[in-house]
């Protein structure tokens, strides 16, 4: 890789940039030309100037090369003497600090304007102090508890009223209240037209011997 004005190459301080303008903007995609490159160099210089020891960085210190159709290219930042390139770590941290500004200048985001080897800080997920599911759980839980308590209490009250009233007459009236079914193993068929003459159950020896 040759640099335009012959500055010594230092590939480990160079970063590859990749833009996907058509993916991001579709029909509104702009053409990548030398003016856009100028803007890019300006943004990189701006980021470097924010680093405490590098306030003197100029646009001319940012060099681009190997621009492809993709659009992708390599860039490197040199020091004012143009003799060597700035260390990758500095460039990396500067870009990371100002990533949002750089993205916005080009209407792109972290995914469509990629700096290879410069990982972007991902947005932290929204973390409410109380997880939402616990709130929903609490509401439903309270409703169910209240409904259960109401049903149980009304059942107890009904049974107490029945016991205080006439105990013998309630079985026929209550079709489906809290009746407790007591049975002796022989089904009772109210439509059994043969009356009591046939015992439909399977007779055991005991029952045959027990007098009615």
């Amino acid at each position, binding site marked *: 890789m040759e640099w335009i004005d012959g500055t010594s190459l230092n590939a480990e301080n160079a970063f590859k940039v990749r833009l996907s303008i058509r993916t991001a903007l579709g029909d509104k995609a702009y053409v990548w030309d030398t003016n856009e490159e100028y803007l890019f160099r300006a943004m990189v210089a701006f980021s470097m100037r924010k680093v405490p020891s590098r306030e003197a960085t100029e646009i001319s210190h940012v060099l681009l090369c190997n621009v492809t159709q993709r659009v992708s290219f390599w860039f490197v930042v040199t020091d004012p003497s143009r003799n060597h390139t700035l260390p990758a770590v500095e460039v990396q941290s500067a870009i990371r600090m100002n990533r949002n500004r750089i993205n916005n200048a080009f209407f792109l985001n972290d995914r469509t304007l990629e700096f290879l080897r410069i*990982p972007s800080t*991902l947005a932290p997920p929204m973390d409410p102090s109380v997880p939402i599911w616990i709130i929903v759980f609490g509401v*439903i839980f309270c409703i169910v508890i209240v409904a*259960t308590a109401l049903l149980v209490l009304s059942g107890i009250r009904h049974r107490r009223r029945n016991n205080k009233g006439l105990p013998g007459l309630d079985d026929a009236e209550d079709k489906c209240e*809290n009746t407790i*079914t*007591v049975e002796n193993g022989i089904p009772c068929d109210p439509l059994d*037209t043969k009356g009591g003459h046939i015992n*439909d159950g399977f007779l*055991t020896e005991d029952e045959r011997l027990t007098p009615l």
Partner: protein
Amino acid sequence: KGPGVHRRAEGFVCCRAREKARPKWGNPMQFLLICVSYAVGLGNVWRFPYLCQMYGGGSFLVPYIIMLIVEGMPLLYLELAVGQRMRQGSIGAWRTISPYLSGVGIASLVVSFLVSVYYNVINTWAVWYLFHSFQDPLPWSVCPLNGNRTGYDEECEKASSTQYFWYRKTLNISPSIQENGNVQWESALCLTLAWLIVYLCILRGTESTGKVVYFTASLPYCVLIIYLVRGLTLHGATNGLVYMFTPKIKELANPKAWINAATQIFFSLGLGCGGLIAFASYNEPSNNCQKHAIIVSIINSSTAIFSCIVTFSIYGFKATFNYENCLNKVILLLTNSFDLEDGFLTASNLEEVKDYLASTYPSKYSEVFPHIRNCSLESELNTAVQGTGLAFIVYTEAIKNMEVSQLWSVLYFFMLLTLGMGSMVGTGTAILTPLTDSKVISSYLPKEAISGLVCLVNCAIGMLFTMEAGNYWFDIFNDYAATLSLLLIVLVETIAVCYVYGLKRFESDLQAMTGHALNWYWKAMWAFVSPVLIVGLFIFYLSDYILTGTLQYQAWDATQGHVVTKDYPPYALAVIGLLVASSTMCIPLVALGTFVKRHFRKK
């Protein structure tokens, strides 16, 4: 009321100690709805589509419908008729048929109990996902970030965000069944809530259950219809439907297709658990249970087929989405490696450009080539999944890509919850009816206390499934608690009614009770065809267990991000044996006990 007085007058003749009327359903519709609610459960939604996919798509419907007519309807009618005739829960009903056979009722009770212990865990998960659906974005649609926020969590990257949410956030699953881990407090809370809801529905017996089933039986259909409309309008849905309904006729020759159709019909109707007998026992004796049996079995199977259509349109959408994603990844890879112009490479010119690049830059292309995945829509559609994997991984993956995904998610998990609750309420009634019928228990405790105690015990045991290894134990219960036992129970039931009680006697009872004569078709099925079929299924299951040798399970490997197969340790095999034995042994043991008791009493 007439019957009350009439009963008391002849009370001393035919039922000496009966004091109070048996509770009844408010109207026959409630009975129909609870049968539908019990039968239509999660199996219709997550097992039937899988079977359909595995065994030939549209052609699977042939064995399925044949088995429905030959096996499902007769056995369902038999159980309903027994319950309506004997007017007691499972234990009392079989004791009436023959005291030696009350073990059948006890076995049904044990199976229902085991099922209720593990089934409510599914409702727990549905509740968990339902409560998490009220967030934007949905928690299973994005991976959480790693420690220094430069990338995503490693396990999530290797698997997918939906798998990560299921295995790590919901289950917090351990690498193997031996490592039990702690009880997860979030799951424990949801389990408690699920049991409270079940208690609320069954605590008043038929009075409350009868009203709840209007809701649990109808809501799943509303949601399924909404999903059908949404599903059919999704991009790529037709791919899934075409794939499913293309019949692969040669699968009809596969015996496994027929066996799976038979087992699906059998287990899907809930036969042998005592639930159907319990529901029918609360009927009016003149109720036409033949008509209800046919209606319920047809509704059950139609629901399965209907949900199959919905599932396959969702599959089609998901497969198309993944396929297009895969293509986009390949396009991006090629664009970046060869610095092609952004937007130049599309799905349509991909192949020709690949050939061009291979010929123009052979060395560079051969470097990139191993990373190019072969994207195939067919292979995406081929991933057949059943069970919790379908409901909580595949469906959630499809939902997260829909617009307004929170709404679809809430609807879907609400539907799962009502399906599960409907079956749980039925199972709860199956357990409670014999308990409340028994003189001993109901004289000490009121109905609310018995229900409360049952729910409490089940909830306490269910905490086992909220531990880190809980899902592995869940799979054990799901696969072994009910399968063999139910086959044996229903076989004994059929033989008992036909040969011990006497088919002619049962026929005349039914005629006196309902007023209709018994069709020859039912008699032929009950006496010959169904027992033979069940024996066949039984032999198949046993030979399958014996031939596979040691039993294995799927364990989640967090380091690799997918499941691996492992062998069960000896104590897990012992638990499996115990599960099967605890219900099947009831039948011979009780018969033996009754015989011994009689023998000593004679002396």
